[in-house]
């Protein structure tokens, strides 16, 4: 089985337009970067508390969306 979703199956369908790898990957990257900033910022303990969940969510999302077709 291929690593990526079968592009032929999705070609032309609305799903293919929604689940494109690049924008989702960018979103996951932004989430990870935001989480890292939250982890290391000196302003709010509240932000620090939620940083791990943000990074974890972004990382899991990145792993999943990197399998989406281009």
């Amino acid at each position: 089985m291929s690593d990526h979703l079968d592009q032929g199956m999705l070609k032309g369908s609305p799903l293919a337009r929604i689940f494109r790898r690049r924008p989702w990957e960018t979103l996951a990257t932004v989430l990870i970067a935001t989480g890292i900033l939250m982890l290391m910022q000196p302003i709010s303990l509240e932000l620090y508390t939620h940083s791990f969940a943000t990074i974890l969510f972004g990382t899991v999302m990145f792993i999943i969306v990197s399998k989406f077709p281009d």
Partner: protein
Amino acid sequence: MHEAAASASVAERVAAATPETIVRRVRGLSDRAIAWVFVLPTMALLLAINIFPLIWTIRLSFTNYRVNRANAPLRWVGIDNYVSILTDPDIWSSMQVTARFVFWTIAIETILGFLLAVLIDRKFRGHGFWTTVILIPMMLSPAVVGNFWTFLYQPQIGLFNYAASFIAGIPPSSFQMIGDVSLAPWSIVIVDVWMWTPYVMLICLAGLRSIPGYIYEAAEVDRASAWRQFWSITLPLALPFIMLAVLFRGIENFKMFDMVNLLTNGGPGSTTELASITLKREAFEKWRTGYSSAFAIVLFVAIFGLANIYVKALNQVKQR
């Protein structure tokens, strides 16, 4: 020709030396199965030394396990360790120390590394020798670097204090780089910059060497000034490589331990206590194994996330 004959004879000798029972068994296997036979030992080794400790650490992070009380009953504490870490102002403080260390080292290393790369790229007389000299610090072990900079920073006999006093005109023993609360963070930044600027320089040099000469020739024809060429050609085309260096040093410095542990051990007070030093204290001084496992997982997830961004950036550089 000779090599082909030699390799054929080696293959024949290996075939001749293989016991008959193994030969019969291998003959019955498909190519795929033989491939698995070769790959499996490596996979087993990787699982044993990489994946198993990780899974074990994740398991321990949900318990109150203390390695110095290994026989005490193990209690499942759920996400309590994670909640403690993510609400602890001391851990938050060590994260900020790490952030400051990462920020200043990256900022200085990037600027100096890029400038050095521009200089080395000009191919002046003896540039090969100077490139080697510049690269020496990054070839040294962080443990060695930590130890000899401890001597260099000695207020009475250290060369650094004498050099600083020569420039600033103050007595060498009037300040302590490692012992002073305000100077200690800079002491670790200076050593990291000294050690890793050559690495940033190498990556930037690769970027500069990848810029085709005809672009500069076209700029010369258009009578663009050297300054304009730098801002419009050199910097934009080398930028992905600079970003790569920033990301790579960011990941490395986020988990920095050895050099800082030898140099200041987190002191004075907790002014240079990076996240990795706090982790070591929790694990091997307070013996809170479950808690420190959770902390290690928090750092691991952060570094893993950064590594994902790094891979994405690397792919973009490759596509250029």
